[in-house]
């Protein structure tokens, strides 16, 4: 099949993080030569620190108020970032291109109605017919349309409605692995000629108590806002959730060139895997991912590491990267943006695209830990190791 393989390139980047909205806002802060100041909120959900949603005018990408009302912020963030990516690729107003565009979205679930849940839990303390109570309260208190803001595949559904992306619509789930698979699946389809252009990405909103609860069920969250991401002993200080909407327009090189599109970078390979992390089995798997993606590192390469912040796991990831890719600058994404679960891998690929499209080297993300790069990178390696399971790696190359 090698003779029919298509090159896959990134032609649109839509990125919203705590640092700001859009490519330009990120470029200005990431290519300035100094470690950008992280934007965190340690007041709203104490003792946790999260990377909040930046100031954002939803109307810029979701013009109809009716559409905005049908969503909560998680879906709004994804729809917004998807719109940015389409705009950036020059496809937003191209009805034909959107109608034939494939879409693969990495999604979790939407917001709970915290007031209703609280009402039921508190009432439940006084009653021993809790199942009856549930029926009563859910029937009378739930907003009917909230279900649609919660359904995983309705992020994609809303992108179809708002941006008219309708070639196909698939939603992948499964924490970090969903983000890896969304890019991997889009890449594989374009490379094999099954698709010519595909919107991939995801969104994660850190400003959610219901999500903090899930992560804290294994006590994975950092609790000291003053702690740096990396501690002195090479491990990390806990996970701080990050807000990210990250979407990419992937295209075959032929398709991109035919319409004169700007190419951020070529996506050379994306792969994911999973399995036991006992002993050195994680490291063995990562080494195989590096081999199979052709990731070799070097001074003109930069590694975008999605290390979560979990102390031991992040230490292992860092040790692996330093051994596998010696003399290669590493950028610790979560140190600057927090950990964005489903959106982590797409966000990391987005950041790699910005770096490979710029003449300046990308600044360190973690002061004192990420090496200063002396020149702009020609290739990038993106890694994400899921906080519970799943690992992924991508390799990208500069095109201009």
């Amino acid at each position: 099949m090698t003779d029919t393989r298509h090159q896959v390139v990134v032609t649109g980047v839509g990125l919203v993080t705590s640092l700001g909205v859009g490519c330009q806002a990120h470029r200005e802060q990431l290519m300035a030569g100094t470690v950008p100041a992280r934007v965190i909120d340690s007041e709203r959900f104490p003792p946790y620190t999260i990377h909040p949603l930046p100031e954002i005018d939803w109307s810029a990408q979701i013009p109809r108020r009716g559409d905005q009302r049908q969503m909560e912020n998680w879906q709004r963030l994804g729809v917004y970032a998807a719109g940015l990516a389409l705009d950036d690729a020059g496809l937003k107003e191209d009805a034909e291109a959107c109608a034939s565009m494939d879409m693969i979205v990495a999604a979790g679930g939407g917001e709970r109605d915290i007031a209703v849940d609280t009402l039921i839990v508190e009432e439940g303390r006084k009653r021993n017919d809790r199942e009856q109570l549930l029926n009563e309260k859910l029937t009378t208190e739930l907003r009917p349309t909230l279900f649609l803001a919660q359904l995983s595949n309705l992020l994609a559904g809303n992108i179809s409605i708002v941006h008219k992306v309708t070639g196909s619509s698939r939603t992948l789930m499964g924490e970090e692995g969903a983000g890896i698979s969304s890019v991997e699946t889009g890449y594989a389809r374009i490379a094999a000629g099954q698709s010519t252009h595909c919107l991939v990405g995801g969104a994660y909103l850190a400003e959610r108590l219901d999500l903090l609860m899930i992560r804290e069920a294994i006590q994975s969250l950092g609790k000291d806002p003053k702690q740096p991401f990396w501690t002195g002993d090479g491990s990390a200080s806990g996970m701080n959730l990050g807000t990210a909407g990250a979407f990419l327009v992937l295209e075959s090189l032929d398709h991109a060139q035919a319409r004169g599109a700007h190419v951020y970078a070529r996506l050379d390979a994306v792969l994911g895997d999973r399995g036991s992390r006992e002993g050195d089995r994680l490291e063995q798997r990562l080494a195989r991912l590096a081999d199979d993606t052709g990731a070799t590192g070097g001074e003109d390469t930069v590694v975008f590491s999605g290390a979560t912040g979990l102390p031991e796991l992040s230490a292992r990831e860092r040790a692996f990267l330093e051994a596998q890719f010696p003399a290669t600058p590493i950028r610790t994404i979560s140190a600057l943006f927090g950990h964005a679960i489903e959106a982590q891998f797409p966000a990391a690929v987005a950041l790699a695209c910005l770096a490979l499209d710029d003449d300046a080297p990308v600044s360190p993300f973690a002061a004192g830990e990420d090496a200063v790069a002396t020149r702009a990178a020609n290739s990038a390696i993106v890694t994400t190791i899921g906080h519970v399971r799943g690992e992924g790696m991508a390799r990208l190359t500069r095109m201009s």
Partner: protein
Amino acid sequence: MSKAAYRDHLGRPLVAVTGMGVVSSLGQGVTDNWQALTAGRSGIHPITRFPSEGLSTRICGTVDFIDIPAPTTVERSFAFARETTVEALAEAGISGDFNGPLFLAAPPIEPEWITRFDLGDRVRPEQMTGNAYDQFLAVLREKADPVAHESMLFGSISERLADRFGTRGLPVTLSTACASGATAIQLGVEAIRQGRTDRALSVATDGSVSAEALIRFSLLSALSTNNDPPEKASRPFTKDRDGFVIAEGSATLVLESLEAAVARGAKVLGIISGCGEKADDFHRTRSSPGGAPAIATIRAALEDAGLSADEIGYINAHGTSTPENDKMEYLALSTVFGDRMPDVPVSSNKSMIGHTLTAAGAVEAVFSLLTISTGTLPPTINYDNPDPSISLDVVPNIKRDANVTSVLSNSFGFGGQNACLVMSAEPA
């Protein structure tokens, strides 16, 4: 067989099904399900999983006969999927590690109410400040709960299936709402056509029926309230259909390139010859009035299969029994099949098993393949009051013998999801 016989009309590897497993409210296993389905038996029953007094819908098609260690969506969905995968691999004659990718359609996961109540009970009086989640967090800071954690993750089900069956790579867990089962098959077909694997495991499971799930669909007026008798509630294509019946189930299909299947001497159960999809941008729960996306999806599946509508001998309908779906599906089908429409039998498995949601597309693909291999069309039961505006041959109430070589199976879902499959007999 020559090499060309293993390729389709576009020179791609033909994708064979060599193993199938199914669980529905009708029972466990392909044999029992097919027997019940062709006998026109309904699996719909009163809800016993939770109290339903006072609810407008008190019936369902849950699967309550498979042992689970805890009453959660993750445990149920995993157990169903495990059972259907064991069955499918046995039929395919594959033991040991599967060594191909896993594509799993699974319901979205949320914390369960038993988890919330349980966490709520652990809150000490001095911690009872703020909302419920503030309180849960205080409890979890003191003592982690890894079991609850695992029941709240979207990746838990595929993780266990991957371990149990030795699949390769990072499993894909997906949701395209009520089209998910078809999408899981489509992803498997694509992977084999890409040449990156000779075999793929496509699994679709749904064990998500709970009070909240039911109430949510109720609040959207999607469910039938014809509670009495339960087996009469799902009435696709009738005048008095009033909603779908929420149900559970699972199906597994072992997909292999036909060449690899023949090379190892596997029995070929059928071919997935075409997949089509098209998203709808009209509304979150309603379809475009003209049915254009559904029409485009059916046409895309036929084109992918290299078949004309004339070559389809039977249609396994999405046929949910909602006023909206059945009307729209008829519009789409009659547009594509034109004058031939009255001559093409169309039946809805959901008249008997209800709507197995995430699993439906794969469960119905299994039944579609059985239709081809057995020459029996399963009926649409409860068809006693035809909707005069839907003039279809729905195989009313009683199964029918028919020689069918290609079947179209439709799946449409909330969020503008449309996916269609074309399945065919093994090429002679």
